[in-house]
């Protein structure tokens, strides 16, 4: 028997698999497809203070081994999440959930997090300072260490729950970003968000995405994510949640060897709605194949020796 349990800021997860924000709604939508209690947890759709429609369509483009999205944080707003979404989730998910929060000002992040802090089912706050699809929004917080630290401090001031800051890969020095968040009190780091990208339609000779550019995700970005998780793990003393292109149990193990305590799965859910369930089912046999008896023991394993 292999052990897939990991611990994330004092909360035990049955396994490290976490569907990433924006690919799993508020969870209850996927409960129609399978029992989502098999998940470690999941990160719910990025939530802002007010409801948002998001960006104009087309919002999606095909890419080699991946996709671009430019959804623009469409969500029903934090009050609706608390009054409508979380009660629906409670009926089908009996584990703590990761609450993903977006924002456009330091005050907004704090205000939204303060409301979610009172929700018993919220286990962790994941503060997204890195959405590439909102102008004047998250991204400036995600590319300036001082701003990321300020958001972190303001959120930490209003919550007792562990705060994970989700970082953008669209920076020169990811380690400086992670360290700034750690110094500001972050309990952990989530990385990476999508890479800024674009496609152009040869027929119309215009960008495919209405907003011209968007966030590139999928298997193509796995090596970038692994490199950044590896670098950040080495530089900080707080847990790292690794994500970016993960689509198999092998990818999960690779991400954990790079330094991830838990692993998020994003774009893969959009192609295969059962992706996370299948990864969880495959994990024990893949662990056995590579002689791994306990997943928590391999975290950062690639750094040794």
């Amino acid at each position, binding site marked *: 028997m292999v052990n897939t349990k990991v611990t994330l800021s004092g909360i035990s997860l049955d396994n490290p698999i976490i569907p990433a924000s924006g690919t799993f709604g508020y969870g209850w*939508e996927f409960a129609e497809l399978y029992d989502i209690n098999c998940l470690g947890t999941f990160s719910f759709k990025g939530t802002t203070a007010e409801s948002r429609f998001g960006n104009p*369509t087309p919002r*999606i483009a095909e890419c080699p081994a991946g996709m671009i999205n430019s959804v623009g944080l469409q969500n029903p707003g934090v009050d609706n999440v608390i009054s409508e979404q979380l009660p629906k989730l409670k009926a089908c998910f009996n584990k703590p959930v990761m609450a993903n929060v977006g924002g456009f000002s330091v005050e907004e992040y704090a205000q939204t997090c303060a409301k979610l802090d009172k929700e018993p089912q919220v286990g962790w706050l994941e503060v997204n300072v890195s959405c590439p699809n909102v102008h004047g929004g998250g991204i400036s917080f995600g590319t300036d260490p001082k701003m990321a630290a300020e958001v972190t401090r303001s959120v930490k001031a209003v919550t007792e729950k562990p705060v994970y800051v989700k970082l953008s890969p669209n920076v020169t020095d990811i380690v400086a970003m992670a360290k700034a968040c750690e110094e500001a009190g972050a309990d952990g780091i989530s990385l990476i968000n999508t890479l800024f990208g674009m496609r152009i339609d040869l027929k119309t000779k215009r960008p495919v995405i209405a907003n011209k550019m968007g966030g590139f995700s999928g298997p193509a970005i796995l090596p970038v994510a692994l490199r950044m998780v590896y670098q950040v793990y080495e530089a900080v003393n707080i847990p790292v949640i690794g994500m970016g292109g993960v689509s198999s149990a092998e990818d999960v193990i690779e991400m954990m060897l790079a330094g991830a305590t838990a692993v998020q799965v994003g774009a893969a859910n959009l192609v295969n709605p059962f992706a996370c369930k299948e990864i969880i089912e495959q994990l024990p046999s893949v662990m056995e194949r590579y002689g791994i008896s306990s997943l928590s023991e391999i975290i950062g394993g690639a750094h040794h020796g």
Partner: protein
Amino acid sequence: MKQTFLTIVSQQRIADNVMEMCLEGDTSGITASGQFVNIKVEGLFLRRPISVCDYTENSLTLVYKIVGEGTRLMAEYPAGTVLDVLTGLGNGYDTSLSGDAPLLIGGGVGVPPMYNLCKTLVAEGKHPTVVLGFNSKGDVFYEKEFEALGATVTVTTADGSYGVKGFVTDALPTTYSHFYCCGPEPMLKAVYRATSTSGQFSFEERMGCGFGACMGCSCKTITGYKRICKEGPVLQKEEILW
């Protein structure tokens, strides 16, 4: 929604760049005319959404136009190929609103979903009139198939090379109880203006997942934000913001 593996029984070209693919397997996920399926195409990342043309308990017919890399690859699949398909996506048409003499309007690649709808309405004892619009004679397909269902069929071509010269709006009957429409957006808008009864429009949008998870295909309606893949692709005329 149901994930299923369907085997291609046959595939043939039925008009310029238009393919008819017949598959067999479990289609129990499909619950209404006007729904779509989302197909995994080897070598591409995102699935390709294709409207259901016709289905039975164990067969599925898809008619699609070769417009990009996904459909070009699909067209090359030989019989026997097994496809990973998400079935029963979207809301589909509501036939309870049709009345006795519904009007079905399909334009180009918007024609296929009208076929199973027509079949269903006929089976319900209704008397559908069908107007099919194409650009040119070489694009025309399924005229005889609709006639075989017992519907009255008019075909229009924009260049006049076949049937009535003009657009579908040049061939609409004067009386009908309700309408159903699928086609390119300029056609939908023209039909919206040219019709006076209640009706249903089927929309197309670039999709990420096709089952409501990614919010890639959202649109605004009078009744709030809707996902084309989940609360659509069929919207009631009264809720469209035009």
